């Protein structure tokens, strides 16, 4: 074609529904502890930042947390469903769910909607009280494919960036305070290259006898 700009129809970009709201979540294993961190941004239609205190990590019980990225309405709804299921489990079985069991539940709940999924990708992080409080983390895609590991998992809009910082900064067997430093630096650095996540962060470090939650001050842009 001779000169001139492409017609408008060719310039329209396709947006992924997973990028509509924006999120970044990391979980890491340490020595007898796990940490899970997320950003706090909530945007609408990508451009407009609407809140800087958006909850993306939910407590299921003292040794089990789940973080959800993706479409905000789906992640909030899923968090409610998981709380429901865990409450029923605890009432019927008179015990709390092991992280691995819960991860399988999450996987099943997502796969039930295989052909019309929830647009959310979860990360499960916890300590297995039935097995010496062994750390457990796993990430999953939106239809429930689990990827358990003993180092770290990431999810969100800018996974490549998050993977990059984690790969370079992570070390195995870190103590809780060291793990906090590493995961906090990773989440803050990782979201800097992503316009859809950031605006502060929150970190939970889960150990056998306590959970330390800290809010991070990052670049507010």
């Amino acid at each position, binding site marked *: 074609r001779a000169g001139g700009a492409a017609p408008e129809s060719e310039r329209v970009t396709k947006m992924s529904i997973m990028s509509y709201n924006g999120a970044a979540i990391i979980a890491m294993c340490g020595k007898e502890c796990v940490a899970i961190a997320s950003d706090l941004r909530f945007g609408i239609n990508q451009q407009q930042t609407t809140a800087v205190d958006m909850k993306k990590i939910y407590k299921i019980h003292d040794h089990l947390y789940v973080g959800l990225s993706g479409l905000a309405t789906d992640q909030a709804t899923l968090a*409610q*469903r998981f*709380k*429901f299921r865990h*409450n*029923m489990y605890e*009432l*019927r079985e*008179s*015990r709390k769910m092991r992280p691995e069991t819960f991860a399988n539940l999450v996987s099943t709940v997502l796969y039930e909607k295989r052909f019309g999924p929830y647009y959310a990708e979860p990360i499960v992080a916890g300590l297995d009280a039935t097995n010496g409080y062994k750390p457990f983390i796993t990430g999953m895609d939106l239809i429930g494919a689990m990827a358990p590991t003993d180092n770290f998992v990431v999810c969100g809009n800018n996974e490549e960036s998050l993977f990059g910082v984690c790969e370079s900064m992570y070390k195995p067997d870190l103590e809780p305070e060291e793990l906090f430093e590493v995961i906090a630096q990773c989440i803050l650095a990782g979201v800097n290259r992503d316009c859809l996540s950031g605006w502060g962060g929150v970190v939970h470090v889960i150990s056998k006898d306590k959970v330390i939650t800290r809010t991070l001050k990052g670049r507010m842009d």
Partner: protein
Amino acid sequence: MARRYDSHTTTFSPEGRLYQVEYAIEAISHAGAAVGLRTNEGVVLAAEKKILSKLLETSVASEKMCKLDDHVAVAVAGINSDANLLINSARLFAQRYAAGYSEPVPIEQLVHHLCDQKQGYTQFGGLRPFGVSFLFAGWDKSSGFQLYQSDPSGNYAGWTATAIGANNQAAQAILKSEYAPSMSLNAARKLALKVLKQTMDSTILMPEKVEMCEVARAHEVPSEKHIRFRMASDKELEELCGLANSATLPTS
């Protein structure tokens, strides 16, 4: 004559009675007693265990008491298998409410839902009614601490103190004279066991024969987070039974 109308639960007799419902209530009058008392600090439920044997595994689940959600519990009198079905239904209702409204279910809503289910079995389907009476103990933000009683007909009422199961009339009589709404939770616990001692067959109250639970404030501030369900420990029961055995009831 009346026997012709007995077999169908969903039919009235000529005298205007539902015999199956009455027979269900009769079945419960042979079950282990349960008593409930409401105070400003919490609601206490105490019950007599009927199934006693050294061979019985004392599992985590209790015979008479059940937690429905963090802020509400029941004591059961009647057929346990019937109760289990209703308890499961109640738990699901409570969770669905919480998932939808992000708020714990108000106690009356829960009781009402369960009673509607019980009523259904007296009007539809030709199935027998549930042979269970419940005592619900709970707290919600709008009405504070509450105690409800329900029976197989699906009727329910709110009470300050009441009893179900064997010898419940005797229990009610004692409660009428000794219960005061301003009682402390501790006084209510003692009175609950005192009442049970009178309604049970034995002269001495054995801690292995009773169960007790409460829905009460964990701390001074009555917020939702600090309301919790708690089963009485063995040590606590021993202590309270000892007190009940040494105390004498005032002569009426």
